[in-house]
């Protein structure tokens, strides 16, 4: 499965990029995040992250499909 993964804020700095194409066998958003957390050394645990799939907030157990755009969102700090 091929995913387009978006990074923001501290995750973007840690990954050293704002986006990457990820080829993975992981089926759901939680497993993909754990895989990427190991790869890039993210310090944020999933409890502090929200997931968005194709531009909408999503549950961690959402089963992903080939071509999905997945964003892992650190706690927000606008305003």
């Amino acid at each position, binding site marked *: 499965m091929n995913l387009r993964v978006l990074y923001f804020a*501290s995750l973007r700095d840690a990954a050293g990029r704002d986006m990457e194409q990820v080829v993975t066998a992981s089926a759901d958003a939680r497993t993909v995040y754990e895989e990427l957390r190991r790869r890039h050394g*993210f310090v944020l645990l999933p409890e502090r992250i929200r997931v968005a799939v194709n531009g909408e907030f999503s549950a961690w157990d959402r089963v992903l499909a080939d071509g999905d755009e997945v964003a892992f969102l650190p706690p927000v700090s606008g*305003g």
Partner: protein
Amino acid sequence: MFLLSESTIDAASLARGLAHAGAGACATFEGWVRDHNDGRPVRRLDYQAYATLAESEGAKVLAEAKEKFAIMDASCVHRIGALAIGDLAVWVGVSAAHRDAAFAACRYIIDEVKRRVPIWKNEHYVDGDSGWLHPDNTPVNP
């Protein structure tokens, strides 16, 4: 209308956009960049957003405010990019027949935008350090 803006926010023009013959009140909130946070002197800020989701979630917040409070119109504009001390970072405006609803809706909108709209603030400190802020106000360093 919820917008992200890469350039200076024109508050006066946004407020005029809320005008309505039945409106007797307009409450606005301005968030400014201040020169310190959590005891550290701040030199400047960067805001980053997940633009598509920020604009849809921001529009949702405004729609909720219109349902919850007796208001006529509401807008919010949030800056992204590099900001200096004193810059207007976020503007909220609400028009209503009466002031109670205008104040309450304005408060609701800024609180919800800060809580759930995917925008992040990177503080650059006077000592050269920087860090992305999170709601508990602690920077997370990669």
